[in-house]
């Protein structure tokens, strides 16, 4: 009888590591409703429960990825999916330049590459709403957007050059246990092309087309949130094949109930 129980227990422990093993280095995010800077109708959006990578994807992880999926190697990617600066800081198909560090976030990646990376891990890129939801937390609260320190700190980072060369996990983690949403690199989002506030969208978007300046500002819900303004502006200016020095990504996973 005792042996039976023991065997049963080891079985449970073993299967548990398998079941939860995939979610290693991911934080559980409890969904909720909130008002982002630019939401649907500029009102409340709903975010479901999901898991988010604790750290941005590193150079080391991306090296492993291109080894497994050679179509994303620097010399083999298609021009449809990447631009000239794709993996610019790599020496060749499998090595970084000597000045780069393995534990820095991977940058110079296109949206297509980032999306495929996440899908190959059984994950996906976060939506803008999900990303902003987790990013509005600080160390002690889930919504720190009204704290003056929160905005000041982020803006101070936006002024600091070359943070993409830093290592992951050096900034304090937020209340969800997620590091580096601010202070390291910008990050790709799944639906970054849903941001319609660029200069060019002034003429080719049907909504308030000739009122762009006014409409963009009126749509925004929190005029003090300059940091968020900048993030949305960056997203609006991106194209999916672009690679940037300070643009990386991380993945999320839906929770299957």
């Amino acid at each position, binding site marked *: 009888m005792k042996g039976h129980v023991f065997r049963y227990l080891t079985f449970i422990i073993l299967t548990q590591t398998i079941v939860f093993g995939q979610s290693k280095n991911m934080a559980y995010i409890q969904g909720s409703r909130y008002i982002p800077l630019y939401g*649907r*109708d500029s009102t409340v959006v709903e975010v479901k429960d999901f898991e988010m990578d604790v750290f941005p994807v590193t150079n080391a992880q991306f090296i492993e990825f291109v080894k497994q999926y050679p179509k994303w190697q620097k010399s083999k990617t*298609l*021009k*449809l*999916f990447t631009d000239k600066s794709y993996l610019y800081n790599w020496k060749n198909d499998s090595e970084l330049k000597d000045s780069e560090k393995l534990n820095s976030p991977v940058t110079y990646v296109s*949206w*297509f590459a980032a*999306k495929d990376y996440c899908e190959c891990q059984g994950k996906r890129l976060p939506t803008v709403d999900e990303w902003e939801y987790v990013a509005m937390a600080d160390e002690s609260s889930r919504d720190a957007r009204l704290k003056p320190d929160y905005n000041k700190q982020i803006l101070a980072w936006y002024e600091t050059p070359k943070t993409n060369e830093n290592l992951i996990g050096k900034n304090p983690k937020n209340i969800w246990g997620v590091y580096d949403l601010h202070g390291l690199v910008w990050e790709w989002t*799944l*639906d970054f*092309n*849903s*941001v*319609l506030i*660029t200069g*060019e*969208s002034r*003429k*080719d*978007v*049907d*909504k308030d087309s000739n009122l762009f300046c006014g409409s963009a500002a009126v749509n925004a819900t929190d005029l003090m949130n300059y940091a968020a303004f900048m993030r949305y502006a960056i997203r*609006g200016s991106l*194209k*999916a*094949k672009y690679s940037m020095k300070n643009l990386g990504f991380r993945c999320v996973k839906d929770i299957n109930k």
Partner: protein
Amino acid sequence: MKTLKSIVFLILLILTFCSCNSKKSNQETVLYQCPMHCEGDKTYTKPETCPVCKMDLQPMELSTLKIENTNGISEESIFNLTSEWNTEEGKQIQLRDLKGKTLVMVMIYTSCKAACPRLVADMRNIETKIPDNKIDQLNFVLISIDPKTDTPERLKSFAIENYMDDPHWTFLQGTETGVREFANVLAVKYKQISPIDFSHSNIISVFNSQGELMHQQEGLGVDNTETVTSILKQLK
């Protein structure tokens, strides 16, 4: 017994595929041709002499073979996308199935009241400027950004309503990620702003028969001369 049969069949199938592959790779490495092309494009697998002019056969250049292997699709071609789409006729296709015709593409959704009717009108205006005898070299493709609502049936009735049911009009319903990916290839931006409404960029894109982007027209009701010229340049 049945399972055994199917397993044996599967193994045979795999074996035949393997042998096909090995043959192909042999061909790729050792193909010879007469330098004078006495017998046209006839190729040999051994470096013999040409039976007509008795010259030594020359190995064929690898680069010509490489292009054949990739079906002539260039790196920038949208035919590299592997997403699946349903047409308004209920057929399942990939974008590469559209190869061979000049493509004029636009992203719309059928419940749209503001910009889409004008975009559709823009597409029809382009259509009227193409000579009738050349229209069969063209394919006007309308891709839905609302794949949940725009089923093949709905697209079909939209096509009939708008007199766009001729063979040179194609409507596509994709998956949510497939649409998002394709929008990114076209640099089209869109966002669902309420359960039935989207705001989106108004861009009409022209692709050549190899799926390479040739021209993009941005905006509503704009002068389409440039777009039409870029299309006519592609036609024979």
